[in-house]
């Protein structure tokens, strides 16, 4: 039993390390592209770092989109030529 528990712990540690590695690679990529831009977003470790992106999407991004009509802002119209 002890060896089974040890193996289980070991595999979860490996998984955690893999997740952390993938997260760190992702953060490095996201932070590297526009470093000199004003107040650009910063990406790093947070409460979702233990999730693969596919898992994150499956759990948290569950809003269904619909097609919305275009907002009818007041359109400026040219005054027709009149005498």
């Amino acid at each position, binding site marked *: 039993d002890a060896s089974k528990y040890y193996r289980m712990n070991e595999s979860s540690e490996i998984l955690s390390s893999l997740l952390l590695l993938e997260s760190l690679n992702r953060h490095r990529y996201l932070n590297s592209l*526009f470093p000199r831009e004003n*107040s650009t977003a910063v*990406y790093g470790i947070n*409460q979702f770092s233990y999730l693969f992106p596919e898992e994150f999407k499956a759990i948290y991004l569950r809003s*269904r989109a*619909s097609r*919305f009509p*275009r*907002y009818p802002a007041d359109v400026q119209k040219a005054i027709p030529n009149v005498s």
Partner: protein
Amino acid sequence: LPLRFDWRDKHVVTQVRNQQACGGCWAFSVVAAAESARARAGQPLEALSVQQVIDCSYDNYGCSGGSTLSALNWLSKMQVKLVSDLEYPFTAQNGLCRYFPASHSGFSIKGYSAYNFSDQEDEMAKVLLTSGPLIVIVDAVSWQDYLGGIIQHHCSSGEANHAVLVTGFDRTGSPPYWIVRNSWGSSWGVDGYAHVKMGGNICGIADSVSAVFV
């Protein structure tokens, strides 16, 4: 337009909530908009029941997902009375819809509007000022790793997957940004909020915008 505006400063926005492992962002954003609409109408600022919307909005799938538009349509058409969060608390899972007697107090919306404001974010800001916080649907894939700052890249329009609430904007610096309330707890982002660049329809923030009427 003012340089900075945030409905939080008017004390009509409730505390950021945490949807936990429930895919009910659509319900959280709609209920947050209803809470603000209620407060703007002069009633006390109070957390309303997200669980009621998750359990009872029949066109949606509770914690497995849903549409803000369907939820708004259901609230408006059925004149559903939203009860307080204390009476019908959040459980982070789907449950059986609980019904309340007609005499039971609750808050119902009068209606809603739903528009696409892409290329018209200034108009969207005007609507925010006149109609209150706005429910929007964004592409939030890269928000998994967000810590702070202004989101300007790494997301697309036309890939909407997450419902949130725009409570204001800030145009005092460069670039100007929308102030966006999320439902992933206050430890995420900037005290539970994200800042998204105004202009350019970043993350599709202007594609699907709804406002609640009271």
